[in-house]
């Protein structure tokens, strides 16, 4: 009897520190956030209960829907770019894996991942500067008349997505390269002996075996795409107009510039529900429970 309780206490002690942080700073805030979203908050801290009004305000606010659409547009462009470029780079690196220079090439593709978002935003803002950005100058030298990407509503989000892909693809490249290395050499040998063409090998053997890694990268990237914030703030601040105002930026502005904390908390809840939904669906998809 005492041993049973002793065991329970012991296990509790192992788990408690982690659980405490998780409850205080992960679960708690979600519940607290829900609570906050039901009130109208005075900037000085007084609160007035208004029930679901914040959510109604969101539903009726074209600016909220604009932010949602912009976020989806960003995700739709950035995710294939990040995962796709990562995959292509991984294939290159894997193909050249026998050579020493390849480790350096891989390092080069990976390095931007270690930069902070501010640096990435600043670099690309400078590259795409309307007057002196070298990308625009180079394009003009090549005879193309480029749009001023960061100042065009149709180009702002794609430009930010491209910068994000440059930043993050390197990490996916490593994941895929590792997955490619996990494929036993016999597969490649067998295919080569059979005289199968490269394309056939790729599509019928390699790609299916990479499926778990690709799916995992897709889920991770999609979720981080939904909360994109830093690059947008630094590169366009949501502009031109509202063309690149994404959900996180909308949340931030309502919370800290207009001091509508309740409504901002409601946006946080909406984001939470979307991401939770995506998480549960992808767990089913990726079969996470079976790996337990």
């Amino acid at each position, binding site marked *: 009897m005492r041993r049973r309780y002793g065991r329970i206490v012991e296990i509790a002690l192992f788990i408690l520190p982690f659980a405490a942080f998780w409850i205080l700073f992960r679960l708690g805030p979600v519940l*607290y956030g829900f609570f906050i979203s039901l009130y109208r908050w005075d900037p000085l801290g007084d609160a007035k209960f208004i029930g679901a009004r914040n959510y109604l305000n969101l539903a009726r606010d074209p600016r909220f829907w604009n932010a949602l659409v912009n976020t989806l547009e960003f995700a739709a462009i950035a995710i294939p770019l990040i995962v796709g470029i990562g995959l292509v780079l991984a294939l*290159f690196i894997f193909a050249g894996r026998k050579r020493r220079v390849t480790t350096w090439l891989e390092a080069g593709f990976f390095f931007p991942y270690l930069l902070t978002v501010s640096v990435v935003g600043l670099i690309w803002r400078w590259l795409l500067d309307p007057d002196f950005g070298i990308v625009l100058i180079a394009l003009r030298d090549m005879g193309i008349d480029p749009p001023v990407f960061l100042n065009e509503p149709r180009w702002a989000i794609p430009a930010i997505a491209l910068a994000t892909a440059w930043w993050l693809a390197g990490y996916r490249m490593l994941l895929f390269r590792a997955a490619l290395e996990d494929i036993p050499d016999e597969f490649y040998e067998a295919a080569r002996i059979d005289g199968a063409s490269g394309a056939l090998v790729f599509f019928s053997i390699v790609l299916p075996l990479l499926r778990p890694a690709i799916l995992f990268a897709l889920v991770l990237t999609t979720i981080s795409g939904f909360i994109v914030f830093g690059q947008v703030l630094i590169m366009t601040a949501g502009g031109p107009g509202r063309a690149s105002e994404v959900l996180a930026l909308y949340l931030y502005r309502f919370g800290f510039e207009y001091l509508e904390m309740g409504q901002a908390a409601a946006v946080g809840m909406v984001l939470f529900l979307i991401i939770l939904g995506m998480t549960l669906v992808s767990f089913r998809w990726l079969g996470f429970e079976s790996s337990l």
Partner: protein
Amino acid sequence: MARLRVVPVTAARLGPRLLVAVVAALALLWVAPIAWMFTTGIKPAPEIFALPPTWIPQRPTLDHVHEVLSRWPFLRWTLNSVVVAGATTVLSVLVSVPAAYAFSRLRWRGRDAIFLVFLSSMLIPLEVNVIPLYFLMNRLHLLNTYPAVFLPMIGMPIGIFLLRQFYINIPGELDDAARVDGCGNLRILWHVILPLSRPALAALVIYMFTFAWNEFFWSMIALSSPQMFTLPIGLRALQGAYDIDYGVLMAGAAMAVLPTLMLFLFLRGSIIRGITMTAHK
């Protein structure tokens, strides 16, 4: 941007040298923006805006660097980032190691269910909680302090997930042998499991440190005075003040990148290995 369809297994046909050359050119193009940032940071203002642009600065100057260092607490920002990232990493490891052990090597009722609950929150980012966290930290009078920034980053399930995956693959016989010798769980963890889990710990440390170092949204909200900014937030403040002066902005960005670059050149192998380790089965 078109997706290149290249099939690597036909490398033999393409000519391996050509392939490497193409990839090398691509890699150079890939890191060119970083080089451009460095050169801009040491060019005097008129040269920055000169057309046609010059790749090698004709009259390099440290004026912008001086401007950043003298007018802003840049070194303090770096220190703040080190403190925040360090505290996050150390505390994360400290709480994740025993928890992951309990979830993997011990059997108890409700273990998998509770783990699933923790896991389900793994992909939920910090950003959705900024408003309640702000309220919370305000109540606790912790706004604009280090704990406000690093505390919310510690209960992240990625740690227990990673470590548990690794622990599961450690043979159970080692535990049994130790138990026969009379070791309790704690000693097993300390003497048997931990020494074997260096690769996983390394991967976790790299992940958490990078994550905390680069955290932006919450840090921006929690920190209000320039003395307390972490590096990403400080750079943004630089932009807010100098959105007209690319020399200063690029110099600041370059200074922020330099330590990362140095570290990467030295530890490139370990860092990459650490990350790919999490990807290998």
